[in-house]
């Protein structure tokens, strides 16, 4: 039986809270979760406290403004952790992660399973690497986050609804970006396909590149941008004009800078009305 234990503990600086399934009555600005071996569900809530629910035995400790939740690398039980939604959350290591309801910062490093983040965070950074079980390398970031960075060697990266800055870099993974409105975006894959559907703000930049994969951009028909499309050993196609090996052209009065390159794949630009509108909020299917 899963029981939520609420044990209010006023912590002295550096004084650990013994045992798992505890709540630290704190006002933390940073919550660090380490060594969580099993699946982790992270929920943002309006309280200034941290709570743990689930079968996993976690230790909550830390100074007054930085709580540490430690899994001790033992077991593979699922854990559900509640954290202040405005806090900065750091997750290091572990398996799969599902985070919702956050609007502060989230930094995930060395994750070896699937990562899904939904909310409206100021900043999201996700680094995954193969090495564990489950759907290794799949990352899904959903919501009007202001800044998103994803680095992964493989797997599929889906980013939907981002507002602001976006960096996705992968070696063999596929990148799917939908319903985006970006000021600055860089999407890079070595062998995977890159797909972007969205709006590049005026004076904004978008750079989408793949060595071997296709690069497809879906932008509004009235986009004002300078385009630079190239596929030295591939093909280029654009609904904004004729194709060719390399194409440079401007639409409207310019403003944004859009670059798409693929060494040996196909580069295409498609007119997409409502490109930044999320028509389908149920996953990657809504992007294409």
């Amino acid at each position, binding site marked *: 039986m899963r029981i939520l234990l609420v044990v209010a503990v006023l912590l002295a600086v550096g004084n650990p809270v013994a045992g798992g399934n505890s709540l630290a009555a704190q006002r933390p600005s940073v919550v660090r979760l380490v060594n969580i071996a099993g699946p982790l569900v992270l929920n943002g809530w309006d309280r200034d406290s941290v709570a743990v629910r689930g079968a996993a035995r976690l230790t909550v400790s830390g100074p007054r403004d930085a709580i540490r939740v430690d899994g001790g690398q033992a077991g593979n039980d699922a854990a559900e952790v509640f954290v202040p939604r405005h806090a900065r959350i750091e997750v*290091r*290591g572990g398996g799969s992660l599902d985070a919702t309801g956050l609007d502060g910062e989230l930094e995930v*490093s*060395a994750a*070896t399973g699937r990562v899904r983040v939904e909310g409206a965070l100021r900043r999201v950074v996700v*680094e995954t*690497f*193969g*090495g*564990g079980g489950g759907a*290794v390398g799949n990352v899904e970031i959903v919501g009007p986050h202001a800044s998103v960075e994803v*680095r992964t*060697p*493989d797997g599929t990266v889906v980013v939907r609804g981002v507002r602001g800055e976006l960096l996705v*870099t*992968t*070696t*063999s993974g596929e990148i799917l970006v939908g319903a985006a409105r970006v000021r600055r975006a860089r999407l*890079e894959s*070595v*062998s995977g396909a890159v797909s972007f559907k969205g709006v590049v703000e005026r004076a904004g930049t978008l750079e989408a*590149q793949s*060595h*071997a994969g296709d690069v497809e951009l879906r932008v509004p028909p009235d986009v004002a941008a300078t385009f630079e499309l*190239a596929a*030295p*050993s591939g093909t280029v196609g654009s609904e904004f004009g004729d194709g060719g090996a*390399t194409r440079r052209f401007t639409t409207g009065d310019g403003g944004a800078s859009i670059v798409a*390159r*693929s*060494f*040996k794949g196909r580069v295409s630009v498609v007119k997409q009305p409502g490109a930044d509108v999320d028509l389908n909020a149920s996953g990657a299917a809504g992007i294409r």
Partner: protein
Amino acid sequence: MSDEPRDPSLDPLVRALPTSIEPPRDLWPDIERRLTPRRRGLPRWLPLAAALVLLLLGGAVLRRLARDPMPGAAPVASVDPTIPVDPSAGAERALLASLERDAGSLSPETIATLRRNLAIIDSALAESRRALAADPGNGDVQALLRLVQRQRTTLLQQAARLPRT
């Protein structure tokens, strides 16, 4: 020898002397006992201590073998001499050396992911290099080459940040 004349009266006395004399008691056994080093019995704990030392040494060797790749084992990655040198080459070499050193403490899946993706990157680098050799002034190929080089560094940095077991 003296040249003085011999006294004939001494001859019978000399002839009467015994040809050998037995000592009053046998001293040799006592002397032999003093010459022979003392032989003490081994302490009972000595074999146990020796076994313990051997066990510890064996454990240390096994740990070392598990952590470090064998001399003949395949490296995590190699630096392809045909790939053009980029500004991050020195940093990459250091990262690779670090990963080789820690290969035993990374999971097999992690090593496999690293090798697989480095192979993809190195293949792309070789392809870009050939294209650049044919068309050295091609800015797009240069940009794509930089992308792949950047990805190689990023991948190695990511692997270097992974927790060790």
